[in-house]
């Protein structure tokens, strides 16, 4: 069965420290992977798509197929990064199949001044 593991419920760091939010997945095939973020009192927002290989708000994520991981990293955390972060592989089958996100439990990032 497809599964996403985010091992840390809470990650607490000081401003300026590096951050790594871990995500491991089990999925047969080549998944599309996303990171979503939910700031306090806001909706879930798409943060990163692995296919874009982009850096958003200083965050990057590298897909490691060997380790089946998609960890989210930022070299210098800011207080405004405090939020709930969700790793979400996409189960995709074109042609009458499915297109659904599988969410991890989420990691709460708390950045202290």
């Amino acid at each position, binding site marked *: 069965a497809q599964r*996403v593991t985010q091992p840390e419920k809470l990650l607490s760091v000081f401003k300026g420290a590096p951050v790594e939010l871990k995500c491991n997945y089990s999925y047969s095939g080549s998944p*599309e992977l*996303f990171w*979503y973020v939910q700031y306090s009192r*806001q*909706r*879930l*927002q*798409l943060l990163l*798509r*692995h*296919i*874009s290989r982009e850096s958003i708000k200083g965050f990057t994520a590298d897909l490691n197929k060997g380790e089946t991981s998609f960890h989210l990293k930022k070299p210098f955390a800011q207080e405004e990064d405090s939020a709930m972060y*969700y790793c979400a592989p*996409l189960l*995709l089958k*074109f042609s*009458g*199949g*499915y*297109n*659904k*996100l*599988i*969410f*991890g*439990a*989420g990691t709460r990032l708390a950045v202290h001044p």
Partner: protein
Amino acid sequence: EAGVTQFPSHSVIEKGQTVTLRCDPISGHDNLYWYRRVMGKEIKFLLHFVKESKQDESGMPNNRFLAERTGGTYSTLKVQPAELEDSGVYFCASSRALGAYGQFFGPGTRLTVL
């Protein structure tokens, strides 16, 4: 462009009652999804519409849940009769296309069944 909207933002009902949640997707998005998070659990997929057709309803928990998308625009999710375990946050999302473009979420409806 306006984002995904959901109504109501909160709903408190008693066990056995009926509740209908509404979702308006981003204009032009043919794909509409429902997800939910019940207390202490992960966000789980419920179903996916392509225009007015149900593409995948594998996540619907039981036949007390009925989703519709008449005309391929807004969608409703009805729970009848509601049970205590239905309490949680129901999210709607939409996307223009399938795949790696991502899905855009509404603010959610918090449902409390007493």
